[in-house]
């Protein structure tokens, strides 16, 4: 028989202070790591970065063994893993029904979503820094093995552009999570948008010359590619802004409306 111990009950509510956003962000960050699936997803960032670095040293032609090659090799798996992390951070509340607790402890859904977005961005930026470390290490070790010259062909600005490109992919995941609130649907939607849609738009542009000009404005993947290449310039920034508005901002606004109104069961 357990004895009952209770805290003193206050008949009038305590004068407690609100929950600061930083605390919600901290909790949301913790929730991204504290399950087996979450832990391995995070670990896979480091594992893929390591595998990509080693594979680049082993298989890339000697003339291509430059810092940019390392960055591209390490960066690609990031654009797949980071959005998955961002999607699950949002959809888990509905798929796993943890929202029942989350949204009663912090009964402001926009605040919780904001905290999740910040937590995802922190993970995104940290991952890019990990990628940078592996890229630098790869570019130090690789040419030493092959005896070729080290080529540092990624400037700071270019690195920041790559970070931005990756964060756009991550935020596309967040947007789809908010919009669909279901892990499988959001994951499928992400892969359709980032792999199928660009192919279709590319084919369309190739066969329909009239569409070619429009493609630059609506193809998010194309707009992002200039960030990764480091060749982005004036008009392409504008095209990136338009494509991002179309694929990220508008769906996110619709999704937020749905989140605010939806019933948490």
């Amino acid at each position, binding site marked *: *028989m*357990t004895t*009952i*111990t*209770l*805290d*003193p*009950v*206050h*008949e*009038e*509510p*305590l004068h*407690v*202070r*609100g*929950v600061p956003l930083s*605390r*919600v962000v*901290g*909790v949301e960050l*913790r*929730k991204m790591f*504290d*399950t*087996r*699936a*979450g832990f391995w997803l995070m670990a896979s960032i480091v594992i893929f970065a390591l595998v990509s670095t080693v594979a680049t040293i082993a298989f890339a032609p000697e003339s291509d063994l430059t810092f940019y090659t390392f960055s591209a090799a390490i960066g690609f798996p990031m654009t797949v893993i980071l959005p998955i992390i961002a999607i699950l951070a949002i959809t*888990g509340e509905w798929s*796993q*029904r*943890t*929202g*029942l*607790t989350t*949204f*009663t*402890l*912090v*009964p*402001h859904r926009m605040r919780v979503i904001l905290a999740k977005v910040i937590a995802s961005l922190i993970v995104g930026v940290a991952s890019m820094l990990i990628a940078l470390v592996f890229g630098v290490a790869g570019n130090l070790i690789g040419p030493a093995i092959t005896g070729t010259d080290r080529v540092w062909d990624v400037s700071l600005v270019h690195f920041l552009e790559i970070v931005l490109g990756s964060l756009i992919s991550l935020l596309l995941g967040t947007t789809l999570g908010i919009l669909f609130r279901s892990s499988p649907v959001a994951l499928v939607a992400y892969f359709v948008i980032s792999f199928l849609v660009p192919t279709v738009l590319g084919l369309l542009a190739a066969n329909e010359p009239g569409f070619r000009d429009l493609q630059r404005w609506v193809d998010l993947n194309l707009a992002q590619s200039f960030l990764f290449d480091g060749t982005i310039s004036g008009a392409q920034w504008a095209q990136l802004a338009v494509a991002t508005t179309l694929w990220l901002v508008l769906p996110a606004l619709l999704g937020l409306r749905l989140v605010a*109104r939806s*019933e*948490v*069961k």
Partner: protein
Amino acid sequence: MIRIESLSKKYGGRTVVDDVTFTARPGRVTGFLGPNGAGKSTSMRMMVGLTRPHAGHVTIYDRSFAELPNPGRVVGVMLDASAQHAGRTGREILTLAQRTMGLPPDRVSEMVERVGLTETAAERRVGTYSLGMRQRLGVAVALIGAPSVLILDEPANGLDPAGIRWMRDLLRAFADEGGTVLLSSHLLHEVEVIADDIVMIGRGRIVSQGSKEVLLKGAGTVVRARDTEALERALGDSGLVTTRTHDGALHTDAEPTVVGLVACESGLALTELRTADGGLEEMFLALTADTEREGKAA
């Protein structure tokens, strides 16, 4: 103190919660009783802001739930003990609540012990928990912020008899300390045993509410004597109207004390004398039967 005023919810054209008004008071356990699908869970979700009411509102100490600066410190909520990520450990789930509320870290171990989960159980993933263990964890999450109000949906579900006893003692002690407890149940007996006030709901509407004493008193007295016919005459002579129950006892609207006095004066030996709980039970059975018929028709 939870004040629920004219709360209503419609899904499509169907009214699930219909103009529900009642108050759960400090120092008392309020039982929210009704058959499955009567609108209890929907009402509770509306109280904590998870579902938007179609009309009406709920205040907790004169503030809406969303206005509470740190709700977990005022209201302990358990709506569904199974709504947890199966991959998190019990301790981790408590830690998330402790951090969100900004409580000292040692609260976690304290709560694990207080709800009777072992340290080993707390380190296990919730996916391996029995329903009873999940209920205990859910109560721990509800109590960790030292709230003054508890809102619990079917807290006794899945508990073994010892667990039910524990839950009852815990809620009793919480109310005796001045806390407000609102719990739902689809079992009349459960609510009778634990609640001070009963709010009975059927098909979204409140059909009866009041303190347990009043609701039970309204049902009159059931009495048996060795010579029931003699008792029936004696009661009739004293001006009390009696009816025969289906199992041969006598039912009257008078108080048990009055019936006992009449029997004593007539020198009749009673074999049973109790307050009839039939009123509430009959009403509840009728509600349940209604719901079941609807279920079959649908």
